[in-house]
């Protein structure tokens, strides 16, 4: 133990630079990966908490009238994890032993299938148990407040009855009407039934509804209370997180209408999944890079330590003792790095949340901060574990080194074989084991579709390629680097020549540093290529949906005709789109007046389309809605209305009509405003929000002037389509700042790799350096030597990475297209093709500064004196 502590501790203490940079490499990798995961966890948690006041299932589903066995059909759909019949109603509750009526409490009754309650995760039972399917006596669960109010406990009995009520109303043919009974008329005297209290609910989930004055009963038993009353067939569905939401929605769309609970499904939409998975992959990428850098540091450090190991061995230290010493040192470094990385990761996540940066874009205010300890500890442990495993390889080589050769000052370890083995070992660990364990701890968000699996495999393959590059083509890398170094020999005779010699002598070291730079350069190029494609997509969409429009909000309910009359005076006025008539069915449905469609978009060239739209049972769906839910022209869309489910025929797919910025929803359909009026009793005659379509080149300010002329006193919101387009592009830039940040940190890691490589090369060549200094080499020439080498590393890594990134960009774009449902043009990396290599050179040169300072401190006398 004394030996372990003495050697390991003194080794760290007296090589603080090496220790610090090793710790930094591991810590930075762990910090990024834990930070990203914690950020994602809090993003989903925070946005869910913000959206959801009351607990509700992922989907509430209504079947088409034609279905014989809706529940059975639902259970068979992919993506449905659990189904329950559901209805809720008011009820009167009293202790069964109390006589007389009207003395109970008015409560909210939730009726669910007893066997599905746990599967839906709808309740938490505080005392007692959940409902038992097929119980002989009807059972209920009580909210805590109700149990206190009635003084009921588990085992007591409770009587429930339907309270006297007004007839239920709904919108039928544009009028609010009382709904008649189903079949038999409602009984004059409500039915009362006794139930046994089997459990009391905690004040969460359904137990929180109606301030805890809730009763949950089995649907079949509860239905008896409302005999004769109309109860629409409704089902609650829990989504299977392993099946993508779009697939579930698409399969539901055939026979069901549904409402999505957006609070439950935060981050589950296709584009959100793509973004979150991208961030997670970026985290893995950072961890791989950090560990790759450290692996190489450890491997190079071996050269420096072989003589020390030989001395210890000559003095009688056993191989096992030597292993313990160096493992202890690696464990100490990795543990400190793990703790620092974990703390740094949590701090990073907190800082990003405070600044409104989330894994679902920027600008979200999330006040909660929850640490998912099991996952972050596992991630930190993974980083530490792999770093430790990384130390095993050089250690095993060091243990096998020839003591006699080391004592003589000869090469004790065969460098070519060792380095080849190291690269293979690193590739297996970093491109095989690490991603496998990482994706077990942080699974990809959503369904493992072939596109997603393909993207992940492509990413891992890309990592493997770069990690193994120095193994596969060291000679080629060396020759290329020499070629790059050639002009420097002419420019800076001594420094350039020595740098070229150094490159020739250590092709593997150069290759590893260049590969680290190339990894980051490729990721930057790929990311920038992808964002340019996303920008292109917004441009294309904005051209179709936005640019020639002016959006007006908070209008003082102006009659449609009056507003239109005023706007027709504006030169270049084309059409008026009403944004006030809207409903969720479950996607956004907007009601537009038919005659406003004829002057622009697909209807302008197809009178038949306009005629069918005017018929009232047709819908024009947006491009994104069509892609996400698989709608095509001719398909039928089921829409739940107050009077039942009705079918609409998809007659066109177009973004030309109906986009409104509040909410910024690109999944929508457009129907005739008359349909909205009939089905949902929407007021379609007055307007509080609208889009004014203008001919290209029309000054939008004319619309503002016309509005002021119409309602001089009104303050209203005014946004032009061109401004909104810019805002979308700015939003995109903001959303991708997180990626920029992660890649910025990985660039720091790559710089650390270059720094470590140069530093260790300096230590390895201390004698050579000392001789050169003794022969009169100036500090400037030493600096020039290192800078030349770094220039080659930066240029080679930057060019290689950019070339790889540019090649991968179309693959990334196609994967993102499949995952997100966006139609992405191939924009390519554009100016990043030269910005990235230039940045790589700057990073590599910056990383050379510290090694230069260290090398210039080399004591020529000591170096010359050493064997």
């Amino acid at each position: 133990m004394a030996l372990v502590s003495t050697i390991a501790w003194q080794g760290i203490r007296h090589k603080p630079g090496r220790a610090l940079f090793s710790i930094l490499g591991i810590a930075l990798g762990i910090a990024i990966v834990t930070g990203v995961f914690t950020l994602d966890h809090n993003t989903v948690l925070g946005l869910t908490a913000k959206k959801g006041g009351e607990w509700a299932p992922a989907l509430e589903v209504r079947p088409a009238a034609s279905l014989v066995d809706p529940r059975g059909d639902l259970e068979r759909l992919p993506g449905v994890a659990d189904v329950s019949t559901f209805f809720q109603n008011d009820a009167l509750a009293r202790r069964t032993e109390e006589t007389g009526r009207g003395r109970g409490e008015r409560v909210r009754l939730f009726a669910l299938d007893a066997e599905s309650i746990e599967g839906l995760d709808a309740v938490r039972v505080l005392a007692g148990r959940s409902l038992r399917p097929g119980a002989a006596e009807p059972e209920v669960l009580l909210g805590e407040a109700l149990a206190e109010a009635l003084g009921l406990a588990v085992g007591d009995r409770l009587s429930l009855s339907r309270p006297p009520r007004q007839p239920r109303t709904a919108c039928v043919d544009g009028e609010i009407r009382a709904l008649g009974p189903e079949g038999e008329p409602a009984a004059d005297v409500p039915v009362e039934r006794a139930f046994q209290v089997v459990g009391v609910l905690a004040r969460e989930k359904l137990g929180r509804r109606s301030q805890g004055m809730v009763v949950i009963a089995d649907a079949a038993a509860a239905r008896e209370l409302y005999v004769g009353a109309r109860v629409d067939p409704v089902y609650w569905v829990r989504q299977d997180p392993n099946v993508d939401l779009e697939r579930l929605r698409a399969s539901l769309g055939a026979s069901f209408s549904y409402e999505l609970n957006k609070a439950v499904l935060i981050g589950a939409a296709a584009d959100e999944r793509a973004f979150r998975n991208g961030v997670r992959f970026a985290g893995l990428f950072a961890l791989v890079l950090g560990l790759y850098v450290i692996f190489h540091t450890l491997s190079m450090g071996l050269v420096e330590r072989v003589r020390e190991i030989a001395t210890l061995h000559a003095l009688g230290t056993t191989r096992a003792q030597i292993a313990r010493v160096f493992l202890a040192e690696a464990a100490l470094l990795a543990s400190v790095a793990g703790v620092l990385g974990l703390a740094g990761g949590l701090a990073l996540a907190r800082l990003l949340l405070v600044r409104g940066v989330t894994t679902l874009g920027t600008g979200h205010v999330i006040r909660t901060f929850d640490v998912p300890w099991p996952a972050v500890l596992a991630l930190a442990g993974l980083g530490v574990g792999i770093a430790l495993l990384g130390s095993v390889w050089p250690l095993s080589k060091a243990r096998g080194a020839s003591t006699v050769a080391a004592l003589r000052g000869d090469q004790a370890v065969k460098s070519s074989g060792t380095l080849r083995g190291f690269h293979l070992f690193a590739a297996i660990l970093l491109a095989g084991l690490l991603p496998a364990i990482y994706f077990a701890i942080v699974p990809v968000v959503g369904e493992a579709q072939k596109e997603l699996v393909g993207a992940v495999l492509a990413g891992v393959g890309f990592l493997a390629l770069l990690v193994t590059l120095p193994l596969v083509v060291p000679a080629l890398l060396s020759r290329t680097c020499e070629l790059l170094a050639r002009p420097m020999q002419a420019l800076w005779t001594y420094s350039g020549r020595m740098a070229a010699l150094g490159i020739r002598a250590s092709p593997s070291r150069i290759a590893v540093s260049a590969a680290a730079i190339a990894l980051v350069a490729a990721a930057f190029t790929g990311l920038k290529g992808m964002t340019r494609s996303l920008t292109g997509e917004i441009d294309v969409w904005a051209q179709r949906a936005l640019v020639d429009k002016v959006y007006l909000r908070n209008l003082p309910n102006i009659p449609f005709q009056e507003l239109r009359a005023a706007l027709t005076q504006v030169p270049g006025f084309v059409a008026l789109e009403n944004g006030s008539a809207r409903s969720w069915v479950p996607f956004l449905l907007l009601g537009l007046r038919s005659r406003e469609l004829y002057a622009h978009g697909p209807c302008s060239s197809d009178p038949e389309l306009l005629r069918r739209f005017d018929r009232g049972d047709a819908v024009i769906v947006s491009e994104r809605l069509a892609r996400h839910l698989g709608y095509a022209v001719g398909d039928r869309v089921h829409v739940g209305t107050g009077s039942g489910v009705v079918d609409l025929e998809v007659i066109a797919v177009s973004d030309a009509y109906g986009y409104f910025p509040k909410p910024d929803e690109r999944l929508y359909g457009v129907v005739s405003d008359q349909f909205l009026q009939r089905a949902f009793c929407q007021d379609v005659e007055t307007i509080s929000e609208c889009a004014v379509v203008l001919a290209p080149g029309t000054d939008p300010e004319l619309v503002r002037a016309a509005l002021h002329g119409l309602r001089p006193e009104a303050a209203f919101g005014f946004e032009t389509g061109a401004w909104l387009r810019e805002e979308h592009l700015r939003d995109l830039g903001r959303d991708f700042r997180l990626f920029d940040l992660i890649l910025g940190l990985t660039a720091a890691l790559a710089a650390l790799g270059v720094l470590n490589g140069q530093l260790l090369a300096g230590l390895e060549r201390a004698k050579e350096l000392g001789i050169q200094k003794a022969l009169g080499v100036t500090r400037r020439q030493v600096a020039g030597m290192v800078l030349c080498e770094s220039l080659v590393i930066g240029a080679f890594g930057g060019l290689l990475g950019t070339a790889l990134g540019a090649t991968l960009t179309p693959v990334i774009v196609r994967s993102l297209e499949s995952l997100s449902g966006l139609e992405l043009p191939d924009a390519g990396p554009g100016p990043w093709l030269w910005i990235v290599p230039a940045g790589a050179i700057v990073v590599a040169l910056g990383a050379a500064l510290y090694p230069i300072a260290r090398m210039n401190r080399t004591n020529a006398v000591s170096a010359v004196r050493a064997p």
Partner: protein
Amino acid sequence: MTKLVEAHDLYRFQGEGQDQTAILRGVTFDVSEREFVCIMGPSGSGKSTLLHLLSGLDQPSAGRVVLRGQDVSKLSEEARTLERRAALGYVFQFFNLLPNLTVLQNVGLPLAISGQHPESEEARLVAILERLGLASRRHAFPHQLSGGEMQRVSIARALAGGQPLILADEPTGNLSQKAGLEVMRILRGLVDDDGRSVLLVTHNPRDATFADRVLFLVDGELAKGRELHGPDIHVDRVHEALAALAI
């Protein structure tokens, strides 16, 4: 007297096939308790290789090394290491001090290797350093010492382990005349005062005069009939022997 180490007909070859060369050829000799043996030879004669074989760091191509009665070649690497730890102290030509450890920590290293706590033996370690004139330098690091000081630390380290046999590989090779003389006096003192044995390999005739017995290694073979014995080994006699061997 008990023999501490015996070499029996040792051979060591390097390379393979046609490139194979013999570094040692049939070397046989021994070192007894309280004996100072010096092996002289020019560079490349196989002196250091012989020490590596005797210490179990390297394996002979043929022949046997017997250390304290045990045939080293029959031991596992682990057992050889443990035997080396128990029987041998090593003094290297290039000192081989661990650069990150202080003088005191370097000297205490054999104790730490044996699983003891050097702190508990600090008084003894300081006494060893005092004897070698290094007590005031005990907190210095190797790079702060002169060559002579570093070699004395190396000797102190060999002393601290308490092993009966010290192997010294050209211990004055990198030292000044004065420092080298001082180191040789110390090594002699280890035999006379501490009762230890020293096996010295060197090509310095002056160093050989401190030994009880001088053997000459030429081209991997011990020169027969040229052995010098006795307390009165003078530099002239060493030079004569070297000249006779055309070294």
